């Protein structure tokens, strides 16, 4: 009882705090600050139709690097956290065999899903979407694979290679930015190209592709680990 009262009290005070913030808010009808600049100059500075992508990959590319790093971190931590002992490793557990429907569906869907994911990150600078979204979509494909065939053995080497190569090249592109252009992660290392085309906005599509691959690889890796670690039970 006392605990609940305390909790209510806490949440009330918190609401009071938030009210203070809410009180300071009023609806804007025009852009201000840096966003105004992005809206006006963004297009010719970065050359990406999707201004969000412009901000994510270029203006605030450093944050994006951080994001990728966080995913990478999580993957690595889970990797050594959920590592199986050798005797467990060979174990196979009897799963309830999956439904006909799921298996067939997966056979048809998975390639499509992968394709869609790739599409999403390649066009990240033009249409809604981008590396993370694409990567996530690819990972859903992997998830589907695992669901369809719980005892599937994914090829680690592929995952690792994709992951590292894309990660390293992301960094290298960043460094190239310092050497060839304005600074770390500058996308003008190659010409901006014609606005609105697929091969435009400088390095953004490349970066985003690497990001997409890396994200996809990492999430699949994590999923896989979860699946495997059941053997330990």
């Amino acid at each position, binding site marked *: 009882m006392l605990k609940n009262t305390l909790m209510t009290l806490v949440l009330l005070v918190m609401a009071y705090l938030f009210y203070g913030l809410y009180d300071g*808010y009023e609806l804007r009808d025009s*852009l201000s600050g840096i966003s105004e600049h992005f809206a006006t100059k963004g297009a010719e500075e970065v050359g990406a139709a999707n201004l*969000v992508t412009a901000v994510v990959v270029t203006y605030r590319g450093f944050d994006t690097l951080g*994001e990728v790093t966080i995913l990478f971190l999580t993957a690595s*931590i889970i990797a050594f956290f959920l590592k199986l002992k050798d005797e467990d490793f060979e174990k196979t557990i009897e799963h309830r065999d999956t439904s006909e429907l799921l298996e067939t569906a997966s056979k048809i869907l998975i390639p499509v899903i992968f394709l869609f994911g790739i599409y999403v990150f390649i066009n990240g600078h033009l249409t809604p979407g981008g590396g993370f979204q694409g990567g996530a979509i690819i990972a859903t494909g992997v998830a589907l694979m695992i669901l369809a065939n719980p005892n599937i053995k994914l090829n680690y080497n592929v995952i690792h290679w994709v992951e590292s190569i894309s990660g390293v090249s992301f960094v290298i592109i960043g460094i190239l930015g310092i050497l060839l252009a304005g600074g770390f992660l500058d996308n003008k290392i190659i010409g901006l190209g014609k606005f609105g085309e697929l091969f435009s906005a400088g390095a953004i599509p490349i970066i985003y592709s690497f990001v997409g691959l890396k994200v996809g690889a990492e999430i699949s890796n994590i999923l896989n680990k*979860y699946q495997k670690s059941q053997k330990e*039970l």
Partner: protein
Amino acid sequence: MEFINLGNIGLIIGFLLIIVGFWGVLTQKNIIKIIIGFSILNTGINLLIVSLGYVKGKTAPIIDATIATEGNYNVADKIVDPVPQALVLTAIVIGFGITALMLAYAMKLYKAKKSLEINKFNDLKW
């Protein structure tokens, strides 16, 4: 009714979600439920972020024929703030990372004590 607009509504709901999330985090004993509480909390925050980026009656910050003409890509008066949308992306990814890690922990903790009650795991105290 002044506050019936995406901005204010988003804020209010966002704050509500945050409070709900905190309630879950602070009261639920089951670790999984706590993790869920956190994702509600994060959702609330993300909602806050995007709503703060909202500008009255503007569209998504993607330059296409509907808002821009060939050669003039100044869309300052047509789009909502792109920055919060960029931030929210980052925030989501971070949230994802943390949730993944928490879940991994949850699995291991369960294996260790065959229980998900958080107050079972107080070997270290005082």
